[in-house]
C-alpha cells in the first residue's frame, strides 16, 4: 500500500464540489444534458485508454424501473467520485488504477448508495471522510501522514456499509436464536430419542 494524498486535501475538494456534479440525474440520456457514463468513461481515461466493455458500461445505465431512486443516488455518488478523482495527486497513478476505480464505483458505491445519500457525502463531515477514505482504500493508497493501521481503524469507524452489515448480521443472529429457543421449548415437551446409556 503506497502513500496517497492527504485526507484534508480531498475533503476540501469534496466541499468545493461544483454544482454541475450535484445535479439530479436524468433517467435516460435523451431526457437531460448529463450522461454519467460519459463522465465516468472520461475519468477512467485518466489512467487507461482501454474503452469500457458494454457489460461494464451497463453499471452506469438505467436498467430497471424498480430502483429509480437507488439508481439515481448511485449515479450521483459516481459523479462525486469522478470529481474527487480528478484531484491532481491521482493523475500519476498507474494504468491499473482504472480497473480499481471501476470496481469501486460499480460495487462499493452501489452498496453505499443504499445507505447514504449523495447530498450527505458533500454536507456531512463524517460521510465526506468516509467517502474519501473509501476511495483511498479502493485505490490501495494510505493517506499521507497515517499508518496503515490508523487508516484502517479510521475507516472502520466511519464505514456505513460495514455497520449496516453488522446490524443485519446481528438481526439475523437474533432471529436464529429466537427460532432455536422456540424449537427447544417445543422439543423439551416432546420425548427425545431413546438413550442407550446414562450419562
Amino acid at each position, binding site marked *: 500500500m503506497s502513500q496517497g494524498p492527504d485526507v484534508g486535501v480531498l475533503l476540501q475538494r469534496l466541499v468545493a464540489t461544483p454544482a454541475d456534479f450535484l445535479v439530479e440525474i436524468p433517467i435516460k440520456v435523451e431526457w437531460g444534458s448529463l450522461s454519467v457514463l460519459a463522465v465516468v468513461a472520461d475519468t477512467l481515461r485518466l489512467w487507461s485508454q482501454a474503452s469500457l466493455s458494454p457489460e461494464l458500461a451497463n453499471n452506469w445505465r438505467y436498467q430497471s424501473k424498480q430502483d429509480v431512486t437507488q439508481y439515481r443516488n448511485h449515479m450521483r455518488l459516481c459523479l462525486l467520485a469522478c470529481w474527487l478523482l480528478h484531484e491532481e495527486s491521482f493523475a500519476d497513478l498507474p494504468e491499473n488504477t482504472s480497473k480499481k476505480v471501476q470496481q469501486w464505483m460499480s460495487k462499493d458505491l452501489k452498496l453505499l448508495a443504499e445507505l447514504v445519500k449523495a447530498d450527505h457525502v458533500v454536507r456531512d463531515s463524517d460521510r465526506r471522510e468516509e467517502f474519501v477514505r473509501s476511495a483511498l482504500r479502493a485505490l490501495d493508497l494510505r493517506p499521507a501522514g497515517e499508518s496503515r493501521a490508523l487508516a484502517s481503524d479510521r475507516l472502520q469507524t466511519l464505514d456505513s456499509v460495514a455497520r449496516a452489515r453488522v446490524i443485519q448480521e446481528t438481526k439475523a*443472529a437474533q432471529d436464529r436464536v429466537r427460532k*432455536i429457543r422456540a424449537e*427447544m421449548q417445543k422439543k423439551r415437551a416432546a420425548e427425545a*430419542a431413546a438413550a*442407550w*446409556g*446414562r*450419562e
Partner: protein
Amino acid sequence: MTDHRYPWLYEAAQKNLNRILEHANAPRFNHECGDCLDDEDYRACIQFEHQLRSTPVGWRKGETPAWLNNFADQSKASVPIYRQKAALTRDFSEFPTTNRQEMASAPWSFVPDDQSLDKLMVYFTSGSTGKHMDVLSHPVVSNKFLVLMRHVLRKQGIELDAGPDQMAMALVCAQSSTYTYASVSRYLKGSAFVKLNLNPKEWRQPQDMGAFLNDVQPQIISGDPISLAELARLDLKLLPRALISTAMTLSPALCQQLSERFLCPVIDVYSMNESRLMAVADDKGLRWVAPDCFVEIFAEHDEPVQHGEWGEITITSNRNPLSPLIRYRTGDFGRLSFADSVVRIIDFQGRPPVVFRVGQRVINNIEIAVGLRAFPLLEYGLHQQQDGGFVLKVRAEASAIKDASTCLQSMGISPLKIEPLLDLPNKKLIQFSTDLKQKNVALSYDPLAPP
C-alpha cells in the same frame, strides 16, 4: 404407526415392540421413545460402522487426527460461539477452549447457522453439580452410541445379535422415579430396548420385575454403578453377555463383584450427554475408542499441558450436528498416555480437584479416591464442614462402610461422621466438596505427583 419416533417402523419390529409393551409382567412404562432414525441418519450410522471397522482409532503423541483442521475451519465459519471466540485464530491449534457454563447459558450458540432445526432434540442434564443444563442433540448422536458400543463389544468377542425377535439391551436405573419406556432399534434390525426402574413401586406386582427380566433376557444391561449393584442384589436368573457401567466412577471392587455375580465382563465407559461414548476402561486406563472425537488435556488457562501432565479433559467432537464441540472442557480431569497410536486417559477424576485440610497439612480428593477404590462402595460423597470436621455420605454394605471409614481415618480424615444412604437416589451425589475456602488449587498442581 409411522411417526417421528419411528420413521421406518416395519411390521416385525412393531410386533417386537408390542411384545415388550404388552408383556404380562411389564412395568408401568411412563414414557414413549423411539430411535427417530430416518433414512439419512440410518445411512450415517452404517457409514460410522464402516468407519469403525476400517479406520484405526487414535493418534500418536503430538499428532492430530486428519479431520480436525477442516472441522475447526467449518465451525469457525458457521457456529456462533466459535465465530466469536476464535475469530483471530489461524487454525485448530490456536482455538480457545469452551466450557459447560457456556453450553448451559447459551446452548443455541453452539448450533451451526446452516443446521436444520427439524431434528433438534433437548436432553436435560443436571450433571454432578446439580445445575440444570440443556444439551441440544440430534438422533444420530444416541444411535451412534449404539453403533460404537456394538463395535467395542465385538472387539471383546461379544456379539450383539440383531433382529425383530431380540431384546438387545436394558438400561436399568434405581431411582425414586425416572422415565421408563420400551423401544425398538432400526440399526439393530428391530431389536428391542427397555429402560427400567428397579424401584418396585414402578411395577404392577412386586414379583413382576424378576419375571419380566428373566423372561426377556436382555443381551446387554447398562446402568450406573448404583443401579447395577441393585440389580445384583435381586434374585434374578439373568445371563447378560456384558454389563455396561456409565455415568459414575465404577470401583474395581464393585466391578469384580458384578462380574462374578453375572458371569460376564463389566465394561466401564466414559460418555457424556454432549457427544456420548468416547472411551472404555481397560486395565491401563480409559482407552479412546471414538474416531470422531479428539482429546487434549488443558491447564486452567487456555494452554494445553505438557504431554503426560494432569489437567482438565478437553474434547473436540464432530458427532453432534447440533452441538459441535471444539476444545470443550468437560469438567473431568486426568492425564493422557500414548502407546503408539492408542490413546488413554489415566488417573481419571470426574470432578475438579478439591483440597481438604487436615490439621496443618492438606490432602486432595484424588488421594482419597485412590484410597477408597479398594472398597465396594456404590456411591459416596465426602464433605468437609466449616469447622474442619468431615461427613461421609455413603451407599454400601455395612462392612464396606466400616472399612472405608477406617481407611479415611488412617489418612487423617477426622472427626468423621458417617451418614449411610438408604433411600433410592434422586440425583447424583457430589463426590468431594468443602465449605473451607479453596486457594486457587484447581489446576495449579499435579495431585498424584510425588511430593
